[in-house]
């Protein structure tokens, strides 16, 4: 076990009591470059922060070059101040690829939830609840644009988990695409997500 791994083991997995206390909620969105991971994180962060009025810190990690899209966005939500801005134990992992799923599913909180694209889950990891949804498939088949998979996922987690209000996430998406020709597409995608989330919620509860 390398020095770093040890350090990780020692530090990474513990949320400080005060953070528990303040109701810190750690979300990680992960996938491949080009899947719009960062903008998904931004939209979710903005919706929860500006829309729902909670404290949010959103950060991401880049590869050794600036230009490569980051493939991991962290959104920390809390009622109090947020100190450490990266996920420690993950409450919610949204994974779009098998790599993302495998890499981070071990960092989950015992009662954490993984929302994964259907194609992302090959093996099951015991620790956390896993919900697989065919985001990419729907995006490709229904919308002819794989890129909207992340918007669908945003809608999904809103209605499925309630961590962001439907209004806020919808407003955030609307603001973002306000002057774009893709506005309608994205508004449809978010509605699709809402619908999916509601369906899954029924299924699981």
């Amino acid at each position: 076990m390398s020095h770093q791994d040890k350090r990780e083991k020692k530090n990474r997995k513990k949320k400080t009591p005060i953070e528990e206390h303040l109701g810190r909620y750690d979300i990680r969105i992960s996938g491949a470059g080009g899947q719009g991971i960062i903008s998904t994180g931004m939209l979710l962060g903005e919706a929860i922060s500006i829309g729902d009025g909670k404290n949010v810190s959103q950060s991401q990690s880049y590869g050794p070059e600036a230009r490569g899209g980051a493939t991991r966005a962290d959104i920390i939500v809390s009622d109090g101040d947020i100190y450490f801005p990266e996920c420690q134990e993950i409450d919610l992992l949204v994974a779009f690829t098998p790599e993302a799923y495998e890499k981070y599913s071990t960092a989950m909180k015992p009662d954490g939830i993984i929302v994964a694209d259907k194609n992302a889950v090959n093996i099951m990891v015991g620790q956390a609840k896993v919900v697989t949804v065919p985001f990419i498939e729907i995006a490709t088949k229904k919308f002819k644009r794989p890129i909207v998979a992340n918007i669908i996922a945003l809608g999904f987690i809103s209605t499925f988990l309630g961590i962001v209000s439907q209004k806020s996430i919808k407003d955030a998406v609307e603001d973002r695409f306000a002057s774009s020709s893709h506005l309608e597409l994205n508004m449809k995608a978010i509605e699709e997500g809402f619908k999916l989330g509601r369906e899954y919620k029924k299924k699981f509860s």
Partner: protein
Amino acid sequence: MALNRISSDGHPLMFVQGNEACVQGALHAGCRFFAGYPITPSTEIAEGMARELPKLGGTFIQMEDEIASIAAIIGASAAGARSMTATSGPGISLMLENIGFAYMIQMPIVVVNVQRGGPSTGLPTKLSQSDTMQARWGTHGDFTSIALAASTVQEVYDMTIRAFEVAEHFSTPVFLLLDELIGHMREKVVLNKHDNQAVVKHAFPEIPPEWYLPYTESLDLVSHPAPFGKGYRYNMTGLVHDRAGFPTSIPAEITERLETLRNKILKHKREIWQLREYYTEDAKYVIIAYGSAARAARGAVESLRLKKTKAGLIDLKSIWPFPDEPIKEILDRCNIKSVIVAENNMGQLIHPVREMLGGSVKIASVNRYDGHPLEPQEIINVVKEEIYA
């Protein structure tokens, strides 16, 4: 429908990166000139300025390199524009000669350093605080630098405005030390909370041009050379010069001028110093940190306090001149057992801390330099070691 981007008390809200908050702060402070050269992780500041300045009639220019960028903002400042550049370690290293020139001619400019891992090309996309000492001692010669810092995105906005304020007030370059994490992290920012008059325009000289000396300081020792092209023709030079701006080699005059350059800042350190304290009233273990490291430290302190450990934090908002007196005052007040310096580097702030405290207090340090932010638990571990030491 759109998100409601107005705060309850009527200020615009944004959910943005630290780098974008820096852009907003600069514009609010009246910055109307930006010259820069792209470099990770500061580039979004240049990009934001390129987008926003033309809207306000200000000027953005991407220069051929960092040397030209700093020169251009100094020139722009001499012509009367509030100006700024942003870069990272390698860019700062290249700018140093001309930053020294700005000290010498007493020209207000703001230089943002979004720090990344070094030395050399180092770790371009990873956070670091390893340019802390460079901000104090980077250029050649004797000079007195000012450096501010921020540990939240809101603070990036606030401290950018503050940097312009301080630069204008002392007519000197001011560093704003950020880092990759803060630069790229998104948080909510409330805009325009500051009075629009926050950054004072210095009164135009009242004396007639014939009598004008650009370096005739008022009692606070600060000179504010009049902008070029307004009828006050004078000389500025990087050579040691007299009050008229002409080179001098008279020893007494050299001594006096260099002392003024130093004293205008050192005699007013209290106006520059800023720090935030957390739980210091009764602390036995005080962490000193800034920027990203201070966030982790804040987490550590809150945690420790929950477990009844008397930990406290001093989160420095001004790094240089080093706020030794206020720190000492705090430590004198409280029940200090050890000081822990937490840094995302191999140990830099520890030097002025050691110098300040001498052997009087036990000093420990926690450092991380692999490109990743310090974590609260790492700091907690060191505090615990101190408890059982």
